């Protein structure tokens, strides 16, 4: 990572936790964990509350749908790290790797329901152009998504519009797929807090 403090500036207790994670998972600690545990009162703890509510709070969207949204937002912003990480979580949640790959490859033809497709299109535009308008929202509503579902999707987008920028700006190390697999299992079991 570009800041040494994020790699090795943690306190003794956090470093001991990292050692435990390495032993238990037999994998290196993901850079996102190092980020959220560094001065956690500043960013990690308050952001974790936002992300957990967005990704695991009550919603008409499934966990898989929301992880897929995270992956699509990440791909749109060019954040390879988050795309790989959340593709792995979405694949685990859906138990369907082909569906996730199809969406990331071609949203227009992927085998998903229309409300989700229209929502993902709107999230892509919001991420790419940094704004959307009422017509964009009307298109999502016309496809069958409810206002509540759109708000829930926007919450996911807020979290990953933030995290993706930080992954790129701080230069997260790109680990092998097995590390993202282990991270995905953790996120499906424990969430983001």
């Amino acid at each position, binding site marked *: 990572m*570009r800041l040494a*403090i994020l790699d090795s500036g943690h306190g003794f207790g956090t470093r001991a936790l990292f050692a435990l994670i390495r032993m238990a998972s037999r994998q290196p600690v993901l850079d996102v964990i190092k980020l959220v545990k560094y001065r956690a009162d500043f*960013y990690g703890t308050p952001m974790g509350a936002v992300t957990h509510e967005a990704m695991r709070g009550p*919603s008409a969207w499934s966990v898989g749908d929301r992880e897929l949204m995270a992956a699509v937002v990440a791909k749109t912003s*060019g954040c390879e790290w988050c795309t790989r990480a959340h593709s792995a979580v979405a694949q685990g949640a859906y138990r369907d790797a082909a569906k996730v790959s199809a969406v990331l490859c071609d949203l227009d033809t992927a085998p998903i329901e229309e409300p989700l497709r229209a929502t993902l299109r709107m999230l892509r535009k919001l991420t790419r152009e940094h704004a959307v308008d*009422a017509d964009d929202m*009307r298109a999502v509503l016309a496809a069958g998504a409810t206002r509540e579902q759109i708000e829930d999707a*926007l919450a996911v987008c807020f979290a990953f519009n933030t995290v993706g920028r930080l992954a790129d700006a701080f230069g997260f190390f790109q680990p092998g797929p097995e590390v993202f697999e282990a991270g995905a299992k953790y996120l499906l079991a424990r969430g983001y807090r």
Partner: protein
Amino acid sequence: MSDIRKARKVLVTRILEGGGEASRSQRRAAFDNAETAEPVRTLIHKVALHAHQVTDDDVAAARKSGLNEDQIFELVVCAAIGQANRQHDSALAALAAATGRNEHAPRDSR
């Protein structure tokens, strides 16, 4: 439905108004993508609008300008959250316009 409003407000208040190594005005400028002094302006602008284009040199230049790593950490976090926040507000306003109702104001004030 999920509800991030309270948690989002806590997050934004913490990074802008809580303690930190960067001054509150520096953090606010990063959040607003309104930093004027180089090289920090370039770093903040990239984080907000082209984060995948941030380079080692951008961060090194910020360090050479006199910022320590904790200050850079805080300013980058503020820049990322600030832009995500603007996008979120824009989208909620578009949704309110499309549905003809704004249910945010009353629920925010609870």
